[in-house]
């Protein structure tokens, strides 16, 4: 039996009074690549914001590695934050710092390593995401794919147990995006990090996902869960098979 690392129970998520997801439950296992997918506007980003504690749930529980995120005091919350890393859609690197300084930021804050050790460590992190040689570049001087990788290096700075990705392939060309997928798979394999990815890129999903859940706008819940390939070929739900086979809505288009 594998360890459950994220446990979501009866989560009602939304903004203020407006409910976006109504009573969803699922588990994420340790070491797996877990993909949250669904059409635009179904609440994928909303779910992610709840999972990383940016928004408190309306009701329900989110348990991350044994700690309850939804009812945590400040101390537990800090503890949970140390276990997770997030790669934001726009990479969110600080524009005034070099890549090395961006990656070093959390390390300097949370460990008491000497300065020269931090530099070696940063070098290793950037090696891991194939950015060796770009230590002294500013974020504005590198391409979108490189920014994503640098953001990933920063998210991994403290070797969190769980990494969250918001639309990692958005805005990248297919080649770069496939490269990022490979990097995710590679890091998952060598570090054993649990990855939770929000995306709707089919190619990406088939390449990386061990397991997916699919959210639906109309039922405001999960309409499918499991291996993406199996869902593509065997799902009875018309919307699910439509999504995985990239068929448009009947009546859409000319």
């Amino acid at each position, binding site marked *: 039996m594998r360890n459950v690392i994220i446990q979501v129970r009866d989560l009602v998520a939304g903004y203020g009074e407006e409910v976006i997801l109504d009573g969803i439950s699922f588990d994420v296992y340790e070491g797996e690549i877990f993909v949250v997918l669904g059409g635009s506007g179904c609440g994928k980003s909303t779910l992610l914001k709840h999972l990383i504690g940016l928004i408190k749930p309306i009701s329900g529980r989110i348990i991350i590695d044994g700690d309850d995120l939804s009812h945590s005091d400040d101390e537990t919350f800090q503890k949970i934050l140390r276990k997770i890393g997030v790669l934001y859609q726009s990479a969110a690197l600080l524009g*005034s710092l070099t890549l090395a300084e961006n990656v070093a930021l959390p390390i300097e804050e949370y*460990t*008491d390593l000497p300065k020269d*050790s931090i530099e*070696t460590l940063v070098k*290793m992190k950037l090696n*891991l995401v194939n950015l060796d040689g770009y230590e002294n570049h500013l974020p504005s001087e590198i391409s979108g794919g490189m920014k994503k990788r640098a953001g990933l290096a920063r998210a991994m700075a403290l070797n969190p147990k769980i990494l969250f990705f918001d639309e990692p392939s958005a805005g990248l060309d297919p080649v770069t995006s496939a490269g990022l997928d490979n990097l995710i798979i590679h890091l998952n394999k060598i570090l054993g990090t649990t990855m939770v990815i929000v995306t709707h890129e089919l190619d990406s999903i088939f390449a990386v996902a061990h397991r997916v859940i699919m959210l639906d706008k109309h039922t405001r819940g999960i309409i499918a869960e499991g291996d993406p390939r199996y869902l593509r070929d065997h799902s009875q739900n018309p919307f699910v098979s439509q999504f995985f086979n990239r068929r448009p809505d009947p009546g859409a288009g000319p």
Partner: protein
Amino acid sequence: MTKTTPKESQSCQYEVVDDPEKGLTIRLRGAMNAANAPGLIREFRGMLKDRDLSSLTVDLGEVTYLDDFGTLVLTELRNMAAEVKAAFKIENARNKVAQMLEVLHFDRLDRKISFEKVRPPGIFVRLGDATFRHASDLKYLISFIGSVCLSLIHVCLHPRSLRREDTFLCMQRTGVDALPIVGLISFLLGLIMAFMSSVQLQQFGANIYVASLVSLAMTRELGPIMTAIIVAGRSGSAFAAEIGTMKVSEEVDALFTMGFDPTRFLVVPKMIASVIVVPVLTLFSDLFAILGGMVVGVFILDLTASAYIDQTLKTLTLFDVFWGFFKGAIFALLIAWVGCLRGFRVTGGAASVGQATTSAVVSSIFLIILTDSVLSVILRYWG
């Protein structure tokens, strides 16, 4: 041969074996990760300091997990060995551990890595750089004046092309919303001025002239200047930040490709709104200052309110009021112009927006004072 007892650093244990023939061996056991790496590094640094080493061997046979923090410990050990010119060797790494070392280029992580930012260039290079930058700033400044004038002319010829909604909103933000703070500051300023001058004037029994002093000084000089400085701080900075952020997020480019002239779209409403509301604010500022002076006059100097008002009206000419009004309009133009100009000069990210905002406020205040001096001189010789 000496052997120390196994030590524990959270989940990672190690023991140290000192063999006169083989040299020092460190035998590690368990997981080496972010939690225990800093402690291990510190302990090893303390242990190996001032120690005669001929060779250092690290035995990883029982290390079950190693990540980049663990690898860092090994690099540290290797560096320490290199410092005293001792041989360094890693033994018995398990498959997974060896793979990790490989992935992280352990062999190639050399000692001298420095992330120092590029050293600032020499003084001549910087001087030349600054010259070019200011030249380009000046060029932009001139072309910006041109484009603002063209846009204004265009809007005068085609009044319907003015974005009326934006202009009204801007008038509200720049004018109406600033009224309380302008009123309060002017009131206090009038109060202070009356109070300070009364100390002098009382000696001559010339209390009533406090009214003249406050009203004249405020309407001609301080009213317009104070109002302009407050507006520069409130709205000039807002103009720069708004346009700067739009520049960073490519909204200005989007306007351009949609066929809008960014100057006409963004600058003209702000300019027109400012030129309309700042003079009005100036009038309010004068009124509140006179009120402040009157409070002192009535309660401290025992003047009657009617005598104070009478004296104020006797002192002020219509020209003084118009002059203040006119200066308010000129200052408004300067504030809106500098704010927008700085906004359009933003390149890069958040830090650049901050610089633009600062520089918008500082330049407008400087320009306000400078223009005021020039106008005073002109008035002196011409009026």
